[in-house]
Protein backbone atom coordinates (compact mmCIF):
# COMPACT_ATOMS: atom_id res chain seq x y z
CA UNK A 1 0.00 0.00 0.00
CA UNK A 2 3.01 2.29 0.48
CA UNK A 3 3.41 2.90 -3.24
CA UNK A 4 -0.25 3.94 -3.42
CA UNK A 5 0.31 6.48 -0.65
CA UNK A 6 3.28 7.92 -2.51
CA UNK A 7 1.24 8.22 -5.70
CA UNK A 8 -1.57 10.06 -3.90
CA UNK A 9 0.81 12.51 -2.27
CA UNK A 10 2.49 13.23 -5.60
CA UNK A 11 -0.84 13.78 -7.30
CA UNK A 12 -2.03 16.13 -4.56
CA UNK A 13 1.14 18.22 -4.80
CA UNK A 14 0.79 18.68 -8.57
CA UNK A 15 -0.77 22.00 -9.42
CA UNK A 16 -4.19 21.93 -11.04
CA UNK A 17 -4.59 23.77 -14.30
CA UNK A 18 -5.88 27.30 -13.88
CA UNK A 19 -9.03 28.27 -15.71
CA UNK A 20 -8.62 31.67 -17.28
CA UNK A 21 -12.38 32.34 -17.60
CA UNK A 22 -14.47 32.88 -14.51
CA UNK A 23 -18.08 31.85 -14.17
CA UNK A 24 -19.03 35.55 -14.23
CA UNK A 25 -17.67 35.70 -17.81
CA UNK A 26 -20.19 33.09 -19.01
CA UNK A 27 -23.74 33.82 -20.12
CA UNK A 28 -26.38 31.10 -20.04
CA UNK A 29 -28.76 31.35 -22.99
CA UNK A 30 -31.93 29.53 -23.97
CA UNK A 31 -34.48 29.38 -26.75
CA UNK A 32 -37.48 31.65 -26.26
CA UNK A 33 -39.68 28.55 -25.77
CA UNK A 34 -38.03 27.98 -22.37
CA UNK A 35 -40.33 29.59 -19.83
CA UNK A 36 -37.95 29.96 -16.89
CA UNK A 37 -35.79 33.08 -16.55
CA UNK A 38 -33.59 31.45 -13.91
CA UNK A 39 -32.46 27.94 -13.02
CA UNK A 40 -30.85 26.47 -9.94
CA UNK A 41 -27.30 25.19 -10.11
CA UNK A 42 -28.58 21.65 -9.47
CA UNK A 43 -31.10 21.91 -12.32
CA UNK A 44 -28.45 23.18 -14.68
CA UNK A 45 -26.11 20.35 -13.73
CA UNK A 46 -28.88 17.81 -14.22
CA UNK A 47 -29.72 19.14 -17.68
CA UNK A 48 -26.12 19.04 -18.90
CA UNK A 49 -25.48 15.61 -17.38
CA UNK A 50 -28.61 14.22 -19.04
CA UNK A 51 -30.36 13.33 -15.78
CA UNK A 52 -32.96 16.06 -16.28
CA UNK A 53 -34.92 16.72 -19.45
CA UNK A 54 -37.07 19.54 -18.09
CA UNK A 55 -36.81 22.50 -15.74
CA UNK A 56 -38.88 23.02 -12.61
CA UNK A 57 -41.38 25.11 -14.60
CA UNK A 58 -42.01 22.16 -16.90
CA UNK A 59 -40.06 23.47 -19.89
CA UNK A 60 -38.47 20.63 -21.91
CA UNK A 61 -34.83 21.47 -22.54
CA UNK A 62 -32.03 20.19 -24.76
CA UNK A 63 -28.44 20.99 -23.71
CA UNK A 64 -25.99 22.34 -26.28
CA UNK A 65 -22.25 22.44 -25.59
CA UNK A 66 -19.27 24.21 -27.06
CA UNK A 67 -16.72 21.77 -28.47
CA UNK A 68 -13.74 23.35 -26.74
CA UNK A 69 -12.21 26.60 -25.51
CA UNK A 70 -11.84 28.56 -22.31
CA UNK A 71 -15.57 29.33 -22.00
CA UNK A 72 -16.45 25.67 -22.36
CA UNK A 73 -13.85 24.53 -19.84
CA UNK A 74 -14.94 27.16 -17.33
CA UNK A 75 -18.61 26.21 -17.72
CA UNK A 76 -17.90 22.49 -17.33
CA UNK A 77 -15.70 23.05 -14.28
CA UNK A 78 -17.88 25.64 -12.55
CA UNK A 79 -21.35 24.26 -13.20
CA UNK A 80 -20.80 20.53 -13.80
CA UNK A 81 -17.85 19.95 -11.48
CA UNK A 82 -15.93 18.06 -14.16
CA UNK A 83 -13.02 18.48 -16.52
CA UNK A 84 -13.68 18.42 -20.27
CA UNK A 85 -12.12 14.95 -20.51
CA UNK A 86 -14.30 13.65 -17.67
CA UNK A 87 -17.43 15.08 -19.29
CA UNK A 88 -16.54 13.46 -22.60
CA UNK A 89 -16.02 10.14 -20.78
CA UNK A 90 -19.35 10.56 -19.02
CA UNK A 91 -21.31 11.08 -22.22
CA UNK A 92 -19.54 8.24 -24.01
CA UNK A 93 -20.45 5.91 -21.14
CA UNK A 94 -24.10 6.75 -21.79
CA UNK A 95 -23.78 6.30 -25.56
CA UNK A 96 -21.99 2.96 -25.43
CA UNK A 97 -24.33 1.46 -22.81
CA UNK A 98 -27.49 2.53 -24.59
CA UNK A 99 -28.46 5.03 -21.92
CA UNK A 100 -28.11 8.28 -23.84
CA UNK A 101 -26.84 10.19 -26.86
CA UNK A 102 -24.02 12.62 -27.43
CA UNK A 103 -25.40 16.13 -26.99
CA UNK A 104 -25.33 18.68 -29.74
CA UNK A 105 -22.04 20.58 -29.78
CA UNK A 106 -20.94 23.62 -31.75
CA UNK A 107 -17.62 25.28 -32.38
CA UNK A 108 -18.16 28.98 -31.62
CA UNK A 109 -20.28 31.42 -29.63
CA UNK A 110 -21.93 32.56 -32.88
CA UNK A 111 -22.93 28.99 -33.80
CA UNK A 112 -24.19 28.44 -30.26
CA UNK A 113 -26.38 31.54 -30.35
CA UNK A 114 -27.71 30.69 -33.80
CA UNK A 115 -28.56 27.09 -32.87
CA UNK A 116 -30.19 28.02 -29.56
CA UNK A 117 -32.23 30.76 -31.26
CA UNK A 118 -33.74 28.38 -33.80
CA UNK A 119 -34.12 25.20 -31.70
CA UNK A 120 -37.06 24.71 -29.38
CA UNK A 121 -35.92 23.93 -25.84
CA UNK A 122 -32.23 24.47 -26.51
CA UNK A 123 -30.12 25.76 -23.64
CA UNK A 124 -26.42 26.61 -23.92
CA UNK A 125 -23.69 29.04 -22.87
CA UNK A 126 -21.48 31.67 -24.46
CA UNK A 127 -18.77 34.08 -23.36
CA UNK A 128 -19.93 37.31 -21.80
CA UNK A 129 -19.02 39.34 -24.87
CA UNK A 130 -20.95 37.17 -27.34
CA UNK A 131 -23.89 38.52 -29.31
CA UNK A 132 -27.05 37.08 -27.72
CA UNK A 133 -29.61 38.60 -30.05
CA UNK A 134 -32.55 36.25 -30.58
CA UNK A 135 -32.02 34.19 -27.43
CA UNK A 136 -33.12 34.47 -23.83
CA UNK A 137 -30.65 35.07 -21.02
CA UNK A 138 -31.01 32.75 -18.04
CA UNK A 139 -29.75 33.47 -14.51
CA UNK A 140 -28.23 30.73 -12.39
CA UNK A 141 -29.46 31.07 -8.80
Amino acid at each position, binding site marked *: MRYLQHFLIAAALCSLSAVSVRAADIKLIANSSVGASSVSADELKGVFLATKTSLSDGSRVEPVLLKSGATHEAFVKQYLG*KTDAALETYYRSL*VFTGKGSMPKSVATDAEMAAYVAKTKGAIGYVSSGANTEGVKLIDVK
Partner: protein
Amino acid sequence: MNATTTRIGLMLVCALPGLLHAQFDFTIDGRQVQVHSFVTQGFAYSDDNNYLTMKTSQGSFAMTDAAVNVSVPITDKFRVGAQVYVNNLGNLGAWHPSLDWAVADYKFKDWFGIRGGKVKTVLGLYNDTQDLEFLHTFALLPQSMYPSDMRSSTIAHTGGDIYGEIPIKHLGSLSYTAYAGQRKDSEYGGYPYLLTQFGISMEDYGGLVVGQDLRWKTPLNGFLVGASHMDENITATGKLNPSITLGGPNIIVPYGEWSNKDQTNQVYGQYTVGNLRLDSEYRRYWRDQQIFSGQYEITTDVRSWYVAAAYRVSKRLEFGTYYSRFVDNWISTVPGQVESPNQSAPDHHLYDKVVTARFDLTKFWNVKVEGHFMDGWAGTMYPDGFYPQDNPQGIQPKTNMLLIRTGFNF
Protein backbone atom coordinates in the same frame (compact mmCIF):
# COMPACT_ATOMS: atom_id res chain seq x y z
CA MET B 1 -9.53 -15.21 -43.12
CA ASN B 2 -6.88 -15.52 -40.38
CA ALA B 3 -6.89 -13.69 -37.04
CA THR B 4 -4.33 -11.08 -38.11
CA THR B 5 -6.30 -10.12 -41.21
CA THR B 6 -9.48 -9.93 -39.13
CA ARG B 7 -7.81 -7.63 -36.62
CA ILE B 8 -6.50 -5.29 -39.32
CA GLY B 9 -9.87 -5.19 -41.03
CA LEU B 10 -11.70 -4.45 -37.79
CA MET B 11 -9.32 -1.67 -36.91
CA LEU B 12 -9.68 -0.02 -40.29
CA VAL B 13 -13.45 -0.16 -40.27
CA CYS B 14 -13.88 1.02 -36.71
CA ALA B 15 -10.87 3.33 -36.40
CA LEU B 16 -11.02 5.24 -39.65
CA PRO B 17 -13.87 7.56 -38.62
CA GLY B 18 -12.01 8.34 -35.42
CA LEU B 19 -8.81 9.06 -37.28
CA LEU B 20 -10.74 11.38 -39.58
CA HIS B 21 -12.56 12.96 -36.60
CA ALA B 22 -15.71 11.99 -38.45
CA GLN B 23 -19.12 12.12 -36.84
CA PHE B 24 -21.49 9.54 -38.24
CA ASP B 25 -24.78 11.26 -37.61
CA PHE B 26 -27.58 11.44 -40.12
CA THR B 27 -31.25 12.28 -40.12
CA ILE B 28 -34.22 10.07 -40.92
CA ASP B 29 -37.64 11.66 -40.96
CA GLY B 30 -36.35 14.57 -38.89
CA ARG B 31 -34.81 12.35 -36.22
CA GLN B 32 -31.07 12.34 -35.66
CA VAL B 33 -29.52 8.89 -35.88
CA GLN B 34 -26.16 8.57 -34.15
CA VAL B 35 -23.61 5.87 -35.04
CA HIS B 36 -20.62 5.22 -32.81
CA SER B 37 -17.96 2.54 -32.70
CA PHE B 38 -14.71 1.51 -31.09
CA VAL B 39 -11.89 -0.96 -31.63
CA THR B 40 -9.00 -1.91 -29.35
CA GLN B 41 -5.89 -3.98 -29.78
CA GLY B 42 -3.59 -5.20 -27.02
CA PHE B 43 -0.22 -6.86 -26.61
CA ALA B 44 0.62 -8.76 -23.43
CA TYR B 45 3.90 -10.25 -22.28
CA SER B 46 4.43 -12.07 -18.98
CA ASP B 47 7.53 -13.58 -17.42
CA ASP B 48 5.88 -16.78 -16.20
CA ASN B 49 2.38 -18.24 -16.58
CA ASN B 50 0.02 -17.60 -19.42
CA TYR B 51 -2.79 -15.25 -18.42
CA LEU B 52 -6.36 -14.83 -19.60
CA THR B 53 -5.91 -17.77 -22.01
CA MET B 54 -3.38 -15.80 -24.08
CA LYS B 55 0.15 -17.13 -24.67
CA THR B 56 1.51 -14.16 -22.74
CA SER B 57 4.75 -15.95 -21.75
CA GLN B 58 5.70 -15.72 -25.45
CA GLY B 59 4.09 -12.34 -26.08
CA SER B 60 0.55 -12.29 -27.42
CA PHE B 61 -1.51 -10.01 -29.63
CA ALA B 62 -4.64 -12.13 -29.04
CA MET B 63 -6.50 -9.27 -27.41
CA THR B 64 -8.89 -7.46 -29.75
CA ASP B 65 -12.39 -6.15 -29.39
CA ALA B 66 -14.73 -3.87 -31.28
CA ALA B 67 -18.31 -2.66 -31.32
CA VAL B 68 -20.65 -0.51 -33.34
CA ASN B 69 -23.91 1.01 -32.15
CA VAL B 70 -26.83 2.93 -33.59
CA SER B 71 -29.32 4.95 -31.59
CA VAL B 72 -32.18 7.34 -32.35
CA PRO B 73 -34.60 9.36 -30.22
CA ILE B 74 -38.13 8.61 -31.42
CA THR B 75 -39.65 11.32 -29.20
CA ASP B 76 -38.11 13.50 -26.47
CA LYS B 77 -38.96 10.74 -23.94
CA PHE B 78 -38.48 7.59 -26.02
CA ARG B 79 -35.29 6.33 -27.61
CA VAL B 80 -34.10 3.06 -29.16
CA GLY B 81 -30.71 1.70 -30.02
CA ALA B 82 -28.53 -1.40 -30.36
CA GLN B 83 -24.88 -2.39 -30.28
CA VAL B 84 -23.02 -5.37 -31.74
CA TYR B 85 -19.80 -6.50 -30.04
CA VAL B 86 -17.04 -8.85 -31.12
CA ASN B 87 -13.91 -9.91 -29.30
CA ASN B 88 -11.02 -12.31 -29.22
CA LEU B 89 -9.10 -12.87 -25.98
CA GLY B 90 -6.68 -15.77 -26.25
CA ASN B 91 -8.88 -18.88 -26.44
CA LEU B 92 -12.00 -16.93 -25.54
CA GLY B 93 -14.40 -14.85 -27.60
CA ALA B 94 -13.49 -16.56 -30.86
CA TRP B 95 -14.44 -13.48 -32.90
CA HIS B 96 -18.04 -14.43 -32.33
CA PRO B 97 -20.23 -11.32 -32.89
CA SER B 98 -22.96 -10.88 -30.36
CA LEU B 99 -25.76 -8.48 -29.68
CA ASP B 100 -24.26 -6.45 -26.83
CA TRP B 101 -27.40 -4.48 -26.09
CA ALA B 102 -30.66 -3.57 -27.81
CA VAL B 103 -32.82 -1.22 -25.82
CA ALA B 104 -36.06 0.67 -25.94
CA ASP B 105 -35.99 3.35 -23.26
CA TYR B 106 -38.92 5.49 -22.11
CA LYS B 107 -38.36 8.21 -19.56
CA PHE B 108 -41.66 9.15 -17.96
CA LYS B 109 -40.06 11.55 -15.49
CA ASP B 110 -36.51 12.33 -14.42
CA TRP B 111 -37.16 10.14 -11.38
CA PHE B 112 -38.77 7.26 -13.26
CA GLY B 113 -37.93 5.57 -16.52
CA ILE B 114 -38.09 2.07 -17.95
CA ARG B 115 -35.88 0.29 -20.41
CA GLY B 116 -36.33 -3.12 -21.92
CA GLY B 117 -34.59 -5.49 -24.26
CA LYS B 118 -31.03 -6.64 -23.82
CA VAL B 119 -29.77 -4.18 -21.23
CA LYS B 120 -26.30 -3.61 -19.82
CA THR B 121 -26.39 -4.62 -16.14
CA VAL B 122 -25.68 -2.04 -13.47
CA LEU B 123 -23.42 -3.61 -10.82
CA GLY B 124 -20.86 -1.52 -9.01
CA LEU B 125 -19.05 1.38 -10.62
CA TYR B 126 -18.02 -0.17 -13.91
CA ASN B 127 -19.81 -3.45 -14.74
CA ASP B 128 -21.80 -1.96 -17.60
CA THR B 129 -18.75 -0.18 -19.05
CA GLN B 130 -16.09 -2.79 -18.25
CA ASP B 131 -15.36 -3.53 -21.91
CA LEU B 132 -15.24 0.11 -23.01
CA GLU B 133 -11.49 0.47 -22.73
CA PHE B 134 -11.43 4.08 -23.92
CA LEU B 135 -13.51 5.20 -20.93
CA HIS B 136 -11.00 3.97 -18.38
CA THR B 137 -7.52 4.90 -17.26
CA PHE B 138 -6.45 1.24 -17.15
CA ALA B 139 -5.87 -1.23 -19.97
CA LEU B 140 -7.40 -3.89 -17.72
CA LEU B 141 -9.83 -2.98 -14.97
CA PRO B 142 -9.18 -4.70 -11.63
CA GLN B 143 -9.72 -8.33 -12.54
CA SER B 144 -10.81 -9.12 -8.97
CA MET B 145 -13.97 -7.15 -9.75
CA TYR B 146 -14.33 -7.07 -13.55
CA PRO B 147 -12.68 -10.21 -14.92
CA SER B 148 -12.30 -10.06 -18.68
CA ASP B 149 -12.59 -13.84 -18.99
CA MET B 150 -15.96 -13.78 -17.20
CA ARG B 151 -17.41 -10.74 -18.99
CA SER B 152 -20.53 -12.44 -20.26
CA SER B 153 -21.53 -13.65 -16.79
CA THR B 154 -22.51 -10.16 -15.65
CA ILE B 155 -22.44 -7.79 -18.64
CA ALA B 156 -26.11 -7.79 -19.64
CA HIS B 157 -29.52 -9.27 -19.06
CA THR B 158 -32.50 -9.67 -21.36
CA GLY B 159 -35.42 -8.19 -19.53
CA GLY B 160 -36.23 -4.80 -18.10
CA ASP B 161 -35.03 -2.06 -15.79
CA ILE B 162 -36.69 0.70 -13.90
CA TYR B 163 -34.42 3.63 -13.11
CA GLY B 164 -34.33 7.24 -12.07
CA GLU B 165 -32.63 10.00 -10.16
CA ILE B 166 -34.27 11.58 -7.12
CA PRO B 167 -32.91 14.89 -5.77
CA ILE B 168 -32.89 15.11 -1.97
CA LYS B 169 -32.68 18.86 -1.42
CA HIS B 170 -29.37 19.71 0.23
CA LEU B 171 -28.28 16.10 0.50
CA GLY B 172 -27.42 15.52 -3.15
CA SER B 173 -29.37 12.93 -5.11
CA LEU B 174 -30.11 9.22 -5.21
CA SER B 175 -29.90 7.19 -8.44
CA TYR B 176 -31.58 3.83 -8.50
CA THR B 177 -31.79 0.90 -10.89
CA ALA B 178 -33.77 -2.29 -10.41
CA TYR B 179 -33.84 -5.04 -12.98
CA ALA B 180 -34.98 -8.52 -13.77
CA GLY B 181 -34.29 -10.73 -16.71
CA GLN B 182 -32.39 -13.65 -18.11
CA ARG B 183 -28.65 -13.96 -18.21
CA LYS B 184 -27.07 -16.08 -20.94
CA ASP B 185 -23.34 -16.67 -20.81
CA SER B 186 -21.29 -16.91 -23.92
CA GLU B 187 -20.14 -20.43 -24.79
CA TYR B 188 -16.80 -18.72 -25.56
CA GLY B 189 -16.38 -17.40 -22.01
CA GLY B 190 -14.08 -18.35 -19.15
CA TYR B 191 -16.33 -20.73 -17.25
CA PRO B 192 -17.12 -23.05 -20.19
CA TYR B 193 -13.40 -22.96 -21.03
CA LEU B 194 -12.46 -23.86 -17.44
CA LEU B 195 -14.82 -26.84 -17.51
CA THR B 196 -13.16 -28.37 -20.56
CA GLN B 197 -10.33 -29.51 -18.24
CA PHE B 198 -12.91 -31.78 -16.58
CA GLY B 199 -14.20 -33.21 -19.86
CA ILE B 200 -17.28 -30.96 -19.83
CA SER B 201 -18.56 -29.24 -22.97
CA MET B 202 -21.03 -26.57 -21.91
CA GLU B 203 -23.82 -25.87 -24.39
CA ASP B 204 -26.11 -23.53 -22.47
CA TYR B 205 -25.47 -21.54 -19.29
CA GLY B 206 -27.71 -18.90 -17.79
CA GLY B 207 -30.91 -18.16 -16.00
CA LEU B 208 -32.94 -15.68 -14.01
CA VAL B 209 -31.15 -12.62 -12.63
CA VAL B 210 -32.72 -9.99 -10.36
CA GLY B 211 -30.81 -7.05 -8.99
CA GLN B 212 -30.77 -3.54 -7.60
CA ASP B 213 -28.31 -0.68 -7.45
CA LEU B 214 -28.54 2.46 -5.38
CA ARG B 215 -25.98 5.25 -5.49
CA TRP B 216 -25.84 8.48 -3.54
CA LYS B 217 -24.27 11.54 -5.13
CA THR B 218 -23.45 13.23 -1.88
CA PRO B 219 -23.48 16.98 -1.17
CA LEU B 220 -19.67 16.84 -1.19
CA ASN B 221 -18.96 17.64 -4.84
CA GLY B 222 -17.42 14.65 -6.61
CA PHE B 223 -18.09 12.11 -3.85
CA LEU B 224 -20.37 9.17 -4.63
CA VAL B 225 -21.13 5.99 -2.68
CA GLY B 226 -23.32 3.08 -3.60
CA ALA B 227 -24.32 -0.54 -3.23
CA SER B 228 -25.46 -3.28 -5.59
CA HIS B 229 -27.15 -6.58 -4.99
CA MET B 230 -27.84 -9.43 -7.42
CA ASP B 231 -29.53 -12.83 -7.08
CA GLU B 232 -29.37 -15.45 -9.78
CA ASN B 233 -30.86 -18.84 -10.49
CA ILE B 234 -28.56 -20.46 -13.00
CA THR B 235 -28.95 -23.72 -14.89
CA ALA B 236 -26.56 -25.21 -17.38
CA THR B 237 -26.60 -28.09 -19.82
CA GLY B 238 -23.88 -29.73 -21.80
CA LYS B 239 -21.99 -32.96 -22.40
CA LEU B 240 -19.52 -34.84 -20.18
CA ASN B 241 -16.86 -37.46 -20.86
CA PRO B 242 -16.57 -39.10 -17.42
CA SER B 243 -13.25 -40.76 -18.22
CA ILE B 244 -11.39 -37.43 -18.06
CA THR B 245 -12.04 -36.56 -14.43
CA LEU B 246 -14.15 -39.16 -12.73
CA GLY B 247 -12.33 -42.28 -13.89
CA GLY B 248 -15.44 -43.46 -15.68
CA PRO B 249 -15.96 -44.90 -19.15
CA ASN B 250 -14.86 -43.07 -22.28
CA ILE B 251 -18.35 -42.11 -23.41
CA ILE B 252 -20.35 -38.91 -23.78
CA VAL B 253 -23.25 -38.39 -21.41
CA PRO B 254 -25.56 -35.43 -20.71
CA TYR B 255 -24.31 -32.93 -18.13
CA GLY B 256 -26.11 -30.42 -15.96
CA GLU B 257 -25.50 -27.81 -13.27
CA TRP B 258 -27.83 -25.64 -11.27
CA SER B 259 -27.77 -23.04 -8.53
CA ASN B 260 -28.62 -23.68 -4.90
CA LYS B 261 -27.76 -20.07 -4.13
CA ASP B 262 -26.02 -17.50 -6.33
CA GLN B 263 -25.69 -14.02 -4.85
CA THR B 264 -23.52 -10.93 -5.26
CA ASN B 265 -23.22 -7.99 -2.89
CA GLN B 266 -21.05 -5.02 -3.76
CA VAL B 267 -20.32 -1.64 -2.17
CA TYR B 268 -18.33 1.16 -3.74
CA GLY B 269 -17.16 4.72 -3.48
CA GLN B 270 -15.66 7.27 -5.81
CA TYR B 271 -14.16 10.70 -5.20
CA THR B 272 -13.21 13.05 -8.02
CA VAL B 273 -11.56 16.41 -7.39
CA GLY B 274 -9.96 18.33 -10.21
CA ASN B 275 -7.78 15.96 -12.19
CA LEU B 276 -7.65 13.31 -9.43
CA ARG B 277 -10.03 10.36 -9.18
CA LEU B 278 -10.12 7.77 -6.40
CA ASP B 279 -12.17 4.56 -6.62
CA SER B 280 -12.70 1.63 -4.29
CA GLU B 281 -15.04 -1.36 -4.38
CA TYR B 282 -15.69 -4.50 -2.36
CA ARG B 283 -17.60 -7.50 -3.64
CA ARG B 284 -18.69 -10.75 -2.02
CA TYR B 285 -19.92 -13.41 -4.43
CA TRP B 286 -21.51 -16.53 -2.95
CA ARG B 287 -22.07 -19.37 -5.36
CA ASP B 288 -23.50 -22.68 -4.19
CA GLN B 289 -23.97 -24.97 -7.16
CA GLN B 290 -24.86 -28.58 -7.87
CA ILE B 291 -22.45 -29.87 -10.49
CA PHE B 292 -21.97 -33.12 -12.42
CA SER B 293 -25.75 -33.38 -12.85
CA GLY B 294 -26.37 -33.02 -9.12
CA GLN B 295 -23.84 -35.65 -8.02
CA TYR B 296 -21.61 -33.13 -6.28
CA GLU B 297 -21.89 -29.70 -4.72
CA ILE B 298 -19.37 -26.88 -4.84
CA THR B 299 -19.68 -23.72 -2.77
CA THR B 300 -17.50 -20.77 -3.69
CA ASP B 301 -17.16 -17.68 -1.47
CA VAL B 302 -15.26 -15.08 -3.48
CA ARG B 303 -14.26 -11.89 -1.65
CA SER B 304 -12.59 -9.23 -3.70
CA TRP B 305 -11.74 -5.55 -3.44
CA TYR B 306 -9.55 -2.88 -4.94
CA VAL B 307 -8.43 0.69 -4.43
CA ALA B 308 -7.46 2.80 -7.43
CA ALA B 309 -6.16 6.27 -8.14
CA ALA B 310 -5.82 8.16 -11.41
CA TYR B 311 -4.41 11.60 -12.13
CA ARG B 312 -4.63 13.51 -15.42
CA VAL B 313 -1.42 15.43 -15.80
CA SER B 314 -2.39 17.08 -19.06
CA LYS B 315 -4.82 16.79 -21.96
CA ARG B 316 -2.62 14.04 -23.40
CA LEU B 317 -1.36 12.15 -20.34
CA GLU B 318 -2.92 10.39 -17.38
CA PHE B 319 -1.31 8.14 -14.75
CA GLY B 320 -3.07 5.49 -12.73
CA THR B 321 -2.47 2.78 -10.20
CA TYR B 322 -4.50 0.17 -8.35
CA TYR B 323 -4.14 -2.63 -5.84
CA SER B 324 -6.57 -5.50 -6.34
CA ARG B 325 -7.21 -8.50 -4.05
CA PHE B 326 -9.15 -11.65 -4.90
CA VAL B 327 -9.60 -14.46 -2.40
CA ASP B 328 -11.51 -17.57 -3.35
CA ASN B 329 -12.72 -19.84 -0.54
CA TRP B 330 -14.36 -23.00 -1.80
CA ILE B 331 -15.73 -26.25 -0.53
CA SER B 332 -16.21 -29.11 -2.94
CA THR B 333 -17.59 -32.61 -2.55
CA VAL B 334 -15.81 -33.74 -5.74
CA PRO B 335 -13.37 -36.48 -4.73
CA GLY B 336 -9.77 -35.30 -4.69
CA GLN B 337 -10.64 -31.60 -4.79
CA VAL B 338 -9.47 -30.06 -1.53
CA GLU B 339 -8.61 -26.41 -1.08
CA SER B 340 -5.39 -25.27 0.54
CA PRO B 341 -6.37 -24.25 4.09
CA ASN B 342 -3.98 -21.30 4.18
CA GLN B 343 -5.23 -18.14 2.49
CA SER B 344 -1.64 -17.08 1.91
CA ALA B 345 -1.11 -20.08 -0.37
CA PRO B 346 -0.84 -18.94 -4.02
CA ASP B 347 -3.75 -21.13 -5.11
CA HIS B 348 -6.00 -19.40 -2.60
CA HIS B 349 -5.58 -15.78 -3.68
CA LEU B 350 -4.65 -13.39 -6.48
CA TYR B 351 -3.24 -9.98 -5.61
CA ASP B 352 -2.37 -7.52 -8.35
CA LYS B 353 -0.41 -4.26 -8.17
CA VAL B 354 -0.77 -2.15 -11.32
CA VAL B 355 0.71 1.03 -12.71
CA THR B 356 -0.50 2.65 -15.93
CA ALA B 357 0.28 5.53 -18.23
CA ARG B 358 -2.47 6.56 -20.65
CA PHE B 359 -1.58 8.71 -23.66
CA ASP B 360 -4.45 10.43 -25.47
CA LEU B 361 -2.89 11.00 -28.88
CA THR B 362 -6.13 12.58 -30.12
CA LYS B 363 -9.63 12.87 -28.71
CA PHE B 364 -10.43 9.52 -30.39
CA TRP B 365 -7.16 7.55 -30.07
CA ASN B 366 -5.36 6.42 -26.93
CA VAL B 367 -2.41 4.19 -26.03
CA LYS B 368 -1.88 2.64 -22.61
CA VAL B 369 1.26 1.10 -21.16
CA GLU B 370 0.55 -0.94 -18.05
CA GLY B 371 2.50 -3.15 -15.65
CA HIS B 372 0.90 -5.92 -13.58
CA PHE B 373 2.69 -7.48 -10.62
CA MET B 374 0.60 -10.46 -9.55
CA ASP B 375 0.94 -12.64 -6.48
CA GLY B 376 -0.93 -15.96 -6.54
CA TRP B 377 -3.26 -17.65 -9.06
CA ALA B 378 -6.32 -18.46 -6.93
CA GLY B 379 -6.77 -22.14 -7.80
CA THR B 380 -8.61 -23.90 -10.63
CA MET B 381 -12.10 -24.41 -9.21
CA TYR B 382 -13.23 -20.93 -10.29
CA PRO B 383 -12.16 -18.86 -13.33
CA ASP B 384 -9.56 -16.31 -12.26
CA GLY B 385 -7.39 -15.71 -15.31
CA PHE B 386 -5.02 -18.67 -14.88
CA TYR B 387 -6.13 -21.88 -16.59
CA PRO B 388 -4.37 -25.27 -16.29
CA GLN B 389 -4.99 -25.95 -19.98
CA ASP B 390 -2.81 -22.93 -20.85
CA ASN B 391 -0.18 -23.71 -18.23
CA PRO B 392 0.51 -27.45 -18.62
CA GLN B 393 3.90 -27.05 -16.92
CA GLY B 394 2.19 -25.87 -13.75
CA ILE B 395 1.38 -22.35 -12.53
CA GLN B 396 4.12 -20.35 -10.83
CA PRO B 397 3.18 -18.36 -7.70
CA LYS B 398 4.00 -14.92 -9.15
CA THR B 399 3.38 -13.29 -12.55
CA ASN B 400 4.70 -10.02 -13.90
CA MET B 401 3.08 -8.78 -17.07
CA LEU B 402 3.49 -5.87 -19.45
CA LEU B 403 0.32 -4.85 -21.29
CA ILE B 404 0.19 -2.31 -24.13
CA ARG B 405 -3.21 -1.48 -25.49
CA THR B 406 -4.43 1.00 -28.06
CA GLY B 407 -7.98 1.98 -28.90
CA PHE B 408 -9.95 4.12 -31.33
CA ASN B 409 -13.46 5.34 -30.72
CA PHE B 410 -15.84 7.88 -32.19
